[in-house]
């Protein structure tokens, strides 16, 4: 086979040397004009902390304090799911700060990749809601914690108020299982959200998830839902766009999707299902080999600041761990986002995720992926 020859097509690039030099010249001009920003980035790279986080958290708005103190933004590395992140770090990827959620916390801690956080080095720690600190498996002893809580929220249904007829006038998870809307429902792809919703729908208590019976029951529910789903995706934009266009009438999303859609004027609501929504808390952890430990604390402090919190609530619709962040918002607005000034209300009204073992995670993910693929 003469692939070699075939690719010789490119050799036909009959550029003369002179022409090439001239081309380079113009390219050079373009290059010097473009990267004014890029050069600033180069300057900032130096010894800044590296924050390994969910896509969307790598924005300057969250790091006002950090920037004021260190003159630049931290470095960002982005993941799409916390499993992916843990896998990467287990593969030897070293960062300063990362961003797990409560149900994964014990497994993250068990990996031995993280060091306890000393709260005395955090200036906003006193304002952090104790309920969020006091998570299962978060106590590192000696007054230290593994994870500093940062954001919290719910996984629930964002639905088009004009297109969805509520069953019995009540918001319920049944919407996502309603054959009436076959092909017009969406779901997050991660088992970390969807499987738990399946448990709620199937009526399996979270403390009994680890049984074969639970697996069977939830799997049956998920298989029932699968033909109704237009697409499973971790990419919230897709769900938001589909909701905005009417391609989907309802989807399993996080708070931020509903907040964004509403700000764009799309008639949606973020449901408070009668069965209860799924509630989660995410936070930040410090890698055991963090090369910039001081700056790592700066990152955390910046994330816990009121300014950051207000941005999170206002623009993303997520809860924040600093109770002062809520002061400037009224209760009604918060309630629309599925939030409250008293997070414990929300946390208790919903189903709070309970950490599971690594084997459970793998088994769940494997099964859920098979179900999504149609088996």
């Amino acid at each position, binding site marked *: 086979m003469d692939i*070699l020859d075939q690719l010789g097509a*490119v050799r036909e690039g009959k550029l003369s040397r002179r022409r090439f030099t*001239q081309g380079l010249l113009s390219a050079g001009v373009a290059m010097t004009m473009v990267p004014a*920003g890029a050069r600033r980035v180069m300057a900032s790279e130096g010894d800044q902390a590296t924050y390994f986080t969910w896509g969307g958290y790598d924005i300057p708005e969250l790091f006002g304090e950090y920037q004021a103190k260190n003159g630049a933004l931290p470095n960002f590395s982005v993941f799409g799911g916390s499993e992916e992140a843990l896998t990467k770090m287990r593969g030897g990827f070293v960062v300063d700060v990362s961003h797990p959620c409560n149900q994964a916390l014990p497994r993250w801690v068990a990996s031995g990749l993280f060091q306890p956080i000393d709260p005395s080095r955090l200036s906003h720690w006193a304002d952090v809601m104790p309920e969020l600190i006091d998570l299962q498996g978060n106590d590192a002893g000696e007054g230290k914690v593994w994870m500093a809580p940062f954001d919290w929220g719910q996984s629930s249904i964002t639905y088009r108020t004009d297109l969805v007829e509520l069953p019995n006038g009540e918001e319920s998870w049944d919407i996502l299982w309603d054959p009436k809307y076959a092909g017009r429902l969406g779901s997050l792809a991660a088992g970390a959200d969807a499987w738990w919703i399946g448990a709620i729908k199937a009526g399996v208590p979270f403390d009994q998830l680890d049984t074969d019976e639970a697996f069977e029951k939830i799997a049956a529910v998920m298989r029932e839902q699968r033909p109704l789903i237009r697409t499973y995706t971790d990419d919230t934009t897709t769900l938001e766009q589909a909701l905005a266009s009417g391609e989907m009438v309802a989807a399993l999303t996080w708070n931020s999707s509903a907040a964004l859609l509403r700000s*764009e004027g799309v008639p949606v609501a973020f449901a408070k299902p009668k069965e209860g929504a799924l509630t989660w808390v995410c936070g930040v952890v410090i890698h055991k080999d963090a090369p910039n430990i001081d700056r790592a604390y700066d990152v955390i402090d910046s994330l816990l600041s009121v300014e950051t919190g207000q941005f999170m609530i206002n623009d993303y619709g997520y809860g924040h761990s600093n109770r002062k962040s809520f002061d400037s918002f009224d209760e009604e607005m918060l309630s629309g986002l599925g939030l409250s000034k008293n997070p414990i209300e929300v946390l208790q009204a919903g189903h709070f995720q309970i950490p599971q073992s690594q084997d459970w995670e793998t088994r769940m993910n494997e099964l859920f992926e098979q179900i999504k693929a149609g088996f």
Partner: protein
Amino acid sequence: MSDGTYIKRPNRPLQVYAVIFLIVLYVPVLFIPLFSFNDSIYVRFPLEGWTLKWYGELWQREPVWNALWNSVRVGVVVAVISTILGVIAARAITRYRMPGKSALVTFIMMPLVIPGIIFGVALLVLLSRMGIPLTLYTVGLGHLIVCLPFAVATLLPRFEGFDPSMEEASADLGENGWWTFWRVTFPMVFPGVVASLLLTFTISFDEFIMAFFLTGTDPTLPMYIWGQLRFPQEFPSVLALSSLILFVSFILVFLAQWIGRIGLDETKKS
């Protein structure tokens, strides 16, 4: 048509097909600049209104520039290294009698016919077993492996079509090996080198699958775009940046064509 020969005479259906083909090829691509002017963070019809704000915002999005800069750095380094290695390899393959040459060539060409995901995971496993942290260097290594076969494939025909007696003539006229290479061999294979640089840079610049597995803290542009696909607030800026890249590459290509045309006319006149 008076100057059409029988074989080459114009074929109307084929012309129509070619035009349709180009339209289908371009329409999806042209949606990118179109939506970069759309006054909504959601990409959908009808357009909400025209705006330039995403371009303005782009200026303040350091991560975007950071990612672009990473991609450019990786691309340039990968293009240069793979082309240099390609030149050396192509010269060795064409110039010397080596037992097992065809097996060697097949080996070098292997990445062309192996799905990128397999390379990605294989390298990830290797690097993680060796405890090597993921950085732009690991991305570069991955891209190098993807790009090398393209470089060799582009350069081989150049070297094959190159008469070795030219080098002998240069040696006969008293140049040593090094200067012979610079004064004779390199200019002769120069178009291949340019093609190889362009091709490998383009491949590296847009490579996603390997980068997905091998990226550390510094995302390349495709990795960054992947991250932004889920977050609509940033997405229009990405569209704006891509439109700029598209625009600049159009300009460069046509500039090259235009300059080439002028050069051609000049040579014709003289």
